[in-house]
């Protein structure tokens, strides 16, 4: 049951990415390109996504546990530190260079596997570097 819900959520997420145009790195980069032919589409995607999620957070406040699991397991960290800031800044640099963030990159494995594979492999490499250089 939990596996099916996660698969459904992932598939809906991936379908949304493909429909919204966010699976196109050049469209994403055009949103970040304030001094070029700026494309505001990404702002509509973010706005559209935040609405159901804001409603979901309201429901979350009123229920004891999720519908298909024993308890909520949400990030409780509140620290605003250098790691958060540096990590976010670095992510933005990579996002700007490639026009890809993790979701669209993984979803694109079904659309343009050859083109996106170098990014996904390098991204896993970056995740591994972080994993083995911390703790």
């Amino acid at each position: 049951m939990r596996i099916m819900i996660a698969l459904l959520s992932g598939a809906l997420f991936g379908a949304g990415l493909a429909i919204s145009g966010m699976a196109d790195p050049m469209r994403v980069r055009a949103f970040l390109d304030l001094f070029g032919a700026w494309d505001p589409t990404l702002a509509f995607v973010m706005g559209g996504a935040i609405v159901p999620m804001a409603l979901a957070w309201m429901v979350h406040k009123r229920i004891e546990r999720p519908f298909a699991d024993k308890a909520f397991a949400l990030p409780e960290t509140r620290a605003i530190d250098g790691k958060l800031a540096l990590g976010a800044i670095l992510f933005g640099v990579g996002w700007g260079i490639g026009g890809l963030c993790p979701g669209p990159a993984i979803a694109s494995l079904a659309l343009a596997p050859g083109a996106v594979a170098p990014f996904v492999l390098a991204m896993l490499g970056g995740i591994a570097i972080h994993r083995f250089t911390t703790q």
Partner: protein
Amino acid sequence: MIPGFPEAQPVAGLIGGLMIGLAAAIMLLGLGRIAGVSGLAARATGLSTGGAPRGVAIAFIVGLPLGAFLVALLAGCVPATFPATGLLIIAGLIVGYGTRLGSGCTSGHGICGLSRLSPRSILATALFMGSGFATVALMRLTGMI
């Protein structure tokens, strides 16, 4: 159509965005978890130990291309243009490392965190948007694009 922005796809963007938000809501209310792609990808590949059960992470990550594939099947094609391979490799390395260091990406901080009004996510989103704008501006300034 938005006057002055012929390339923009506001309607497709909104519809796709609603689907993404609904997907994240299913993850939150169904399984009690954040639909953060960078964290779930790390978990699914065995590159992180905490967080979601491995099966849940793998199912979500497998779902992403599956959903995109279904759209491509129905729509015929999903247009996409990719930067040169060298740039993709550099970008991928930085995105992988940065999202783990900063505990999230566009999905976890940008969609789930912003909608929760999490101060950490608001700061992270402002920073990655800001550095994304600056990076592309720099690329334009140096003639890379």
